[in-house]
């Protein structure tokens, strides 16, 4: 069983996508770097553990939001760290290393997502190779 601030090294994570042109290129059905940009007040990027919540549960809580799924091994490949932090929600994890001027890395992560659900419709779309 994972405990607070345990490092996680396998599995996949979800991140919600706002229904917004800065976060989603509707013409090409793909996410942008802003989905991998931590909030100004945080040093980490918040995500959901996919082994602890179903996409439908996220859609029910956040109508109109899209979703992306990414493999934790991809994040580790780029030197990021993932820690389990359930104090902010049972399925909450923090991804460390995305703060600051990391736009090239954020764009690379966009290319490596596993699954995407479009903001607005919440329909599953296939990631396109770029």
């Amino acid at each position: 069983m994972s405990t607070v601030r345990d490092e996680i090294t396998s599995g996949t994570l979800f991140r919600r996508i706002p229904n917004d042109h800065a976060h989603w290129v509707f013409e090409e059905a793909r996410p942008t770097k802003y989905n991998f940009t931590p909030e100004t007040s945080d040093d980490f990027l918040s995500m959901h553990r996919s082994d602890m919540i179903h996409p439908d549960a996220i859609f029910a809580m956040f109508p109109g939001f899209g979703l992306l799924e990414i493999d934790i091994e991809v994040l580790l490949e780029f030197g990021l760290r993932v820690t389990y932090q359930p104090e902010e929600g049972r399925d909450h994890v923090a991804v460390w290393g995305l703060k600051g001027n990391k736009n090239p890395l954020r764009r690379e992560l966009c290319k490596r997502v596993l699954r995407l659900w479009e903001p607005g419709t919440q329909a599953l779309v296939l990631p396109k190779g770029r």
Partner: protein
Amino acid sequence: MARAVRPEHPYSSLIDEILALSKRQPGWNSYGARPITAEAQLAAIALVNSFYDRVPLPTVGGAPNGGVVLRWLTPDREIELLFAAAESEYSVLRRDTGELVVEGRLHDVDLIKNLIQDHVLGQRALDRAAGRK
């Protein structure tokens, strides 16, 4: 009696979209995004007010840091401007490969105009020459 009809500014809908971003509350991205700042909106609108009718409409969005994002997609380029005070930046990518063409900090109006001229309008001129709309 004939009524005077004021012609609509070609970019008024774009300015409306930028102004509408101010309705977003803190946390609008479902995480901890800042409200869109008036400074970012005014910077974006100042650029739009310098447009002339050959500049195509960009899409408008909000950044988590309270900035305003303008994005153009041409047949082979993605041009993005982020207005966010000291964090303002720009990027130009190739659409087919995602390869970066150029990026940097956005601190100079002339730089923005050159980006639009070279990557938004420049591509359109090439398209017209090639007979594409």
